């Protein structure tokens, strides 16, 4: 059974003068149990709105959301104890310490002080756990938000941009943490705009654009669907190589002045090599052009030319 199900989820916001903004436009999505699921989309694509609807913070205009089989709009309280979440920057009592903030939330679910200390340790906040939260940096607050999400020892984690505000080391720690949580058998549903992190961390991914889900599936499948665009090769004389390929009827261009990109299917590698060799140019490196999640993302969301190379 999917742990998250969205059926025709639609969310509209009414503005002044009767204008309506459609934030989410009929998303269908099923997130299977276990592993890390990346929820990608450019700013304003509806990621946070979808997460808010999932967690019962916003009412869908149409469609349904289910978390662990329970309807988010009517039955969320029956499963909320098994769902840990972080929606944007966590809202906390600034005059209280991290430990007290967590302890007060923990009281709602009879969570012990030992568990509070354990999650603070897991996110690396033990040393500052007694300090008032108002003195915390953005990154520390974000860690505390992750600690809040972990406090229930949840079966499902819904995290909205958990790496926001973190430094590179912090981002790496979060990546390791998410991966380990997914490997423990939990389901981690994480929205992010850091595509390389998603690519490195997630098992599956869904890509949102203008309120719609434009691709979903295992990360490798989504990348394959984007498909390699051509070949990347190196010869000693790059300019002569480009000219030779053009002469052979194969579109080619210099790639950052260090390699040549040939816009032919990868299975024509042999022909490319032969054409160059016939003109006295010998290939020193030849490989399919790798497609990054970023390339696919930009193609699918229509926000880029789709020519990024990993």
């Amino acid at each position: 059974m999917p742990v998250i199900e969205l059926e025709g989820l639609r969310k509209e916001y009414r503005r002044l003068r009767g204008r309506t903004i459609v934030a989410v436009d009929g998303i269908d999505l099923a997130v299977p149990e276990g592993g890390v699921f990346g929820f990608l989309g450019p700013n304003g694509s509806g990621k946070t709105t979808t997460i808010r609807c999932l967690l019962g913070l916003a009412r869908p205009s149409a469609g349904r959301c289910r978390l662990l089989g329970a309807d988010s709009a009517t039955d969320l309280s029956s499963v909320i104890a098994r769902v840990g979440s972080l929606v944007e920057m966590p809202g906390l009592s600034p005059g209280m310490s991290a430990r007290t903030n967590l302890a007060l939330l923990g009281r709602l679910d009879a969570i012990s002080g030992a568990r509070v200390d354990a999650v603070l340790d897991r996110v690396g906040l033990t040393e500052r756990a007694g300090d008032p939260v108002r003195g915390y940096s953005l990154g520390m607050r974000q860690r505390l938000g992750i600690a809040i999400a972990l406090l229930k020892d949840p079966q499902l984690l819904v995290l909205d941009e958990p790496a926001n505000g973190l430094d590179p080391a912090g981002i790496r720690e979060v990546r390791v943490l998410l991966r380990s949580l997914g490997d423990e058998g939990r389901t981690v549903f994480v929205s992010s705009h850091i595509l390389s992190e998603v690519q490195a961390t997630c098992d599956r991914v869904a890509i949102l654009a203008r309120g719609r889900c434009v691709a979903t599936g295992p990360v490798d499948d989504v990348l394959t669907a984007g498909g390699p665009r051509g070949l990347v090769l190196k010869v000693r004389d790059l300019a002569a190589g480009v000219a030779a390929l053009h002469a052979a009827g194969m579109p080619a261009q210099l790639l950052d002045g260090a390699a040549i990109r040939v816009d032919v299917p990868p299975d024509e590698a042999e022909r490319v090599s032969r054409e160059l060799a016939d003109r006295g140019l010998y290939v020193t490196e030849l490989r399919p052009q790798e497609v990054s999640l970023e390339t696919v993302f930009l193609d699918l969301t229509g926000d880029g030319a789709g020519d990024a190379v990993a």
Partner: protein
Amino acid sequence: MSGLLTGEVRRLVARRMVKVLVLLAGLGIGLAGVLTFLNTEKSDIAAVQARRQQVQREFQNCFDRLSTGPRPGQPPRVVEERGGACDVDTSGTDDKRLPLVDLSDILQGFTAPLVIVAWVLGASAIGADWQSRTLTTLLTWEPRRVRVLLGKAGAAMIVAALFFLFAQALLFGALLPSALAHGTTAGADGSWYATLAGVVGRGGVMVAVAAGIGFAIASVGRNTAAALGIGFAYVVVIENVVGQFLEDWRRWLLLGNTIVFVSGESGGGNEGVAGRSVLGAGIFLVAVSVGLLLAAAAVFRRRDVA
């Protein structure tokens, strides 16, 4: 629910605003206690009364002397005019004691500013949550919204009532040395203690009501300023305009009923509501607070939370 209520009470008590209020109340009341002690003294009431009679006689003699010689064609000068010409020593006529029984009136008078503080505290309890998004975090732990809102309102009302009791106890404690050392305990019998308990009890209910109303308005308006603005506009426009021109409507307004309830006198005097009983005023005020809180809960139940 107890976990939610306890947590919210602790969160509210940890707020800087509450700490500042407690500190200011402590300093202000402490200062008032010291000043009262310095300005009161143990007087011999029999000697004061004898002295007052003596001064009165001296004034009368002086007036009589001055009024014996009005000029022809002129009216007799009025007493006030003549008084200035009488240089009579009035020392020793002031009763500088602080009778213990006066404390019930003082505590009753102190209820008014505490009601305003409670309104602000109630409004701030939810207004700050809207701003800091702690409400969002809480809803990801307890999604039953009516429960959350009423739990938070209950916490605000409890903290307001506790602050009221703290401030009243502090004031009583600050004035007690003056009453015991420089005053009298005459009249402080069982009935007076019952009166005092009534003042404190009704005041406690009143501040909880005010906190509830402030909370409800700020909850709908999503910030503290909304409640303060509406409260100010209500007092200036509704109470003054409606209360002045539509006398019959006064029984359905807050101020008159508050005066009746806090004073403990049916009708509440000139500023109260004629014919309104203390119990009736209390029921009306509690009903307004509960009604507004239920309306706020109904709005909150359907609202999107950022």
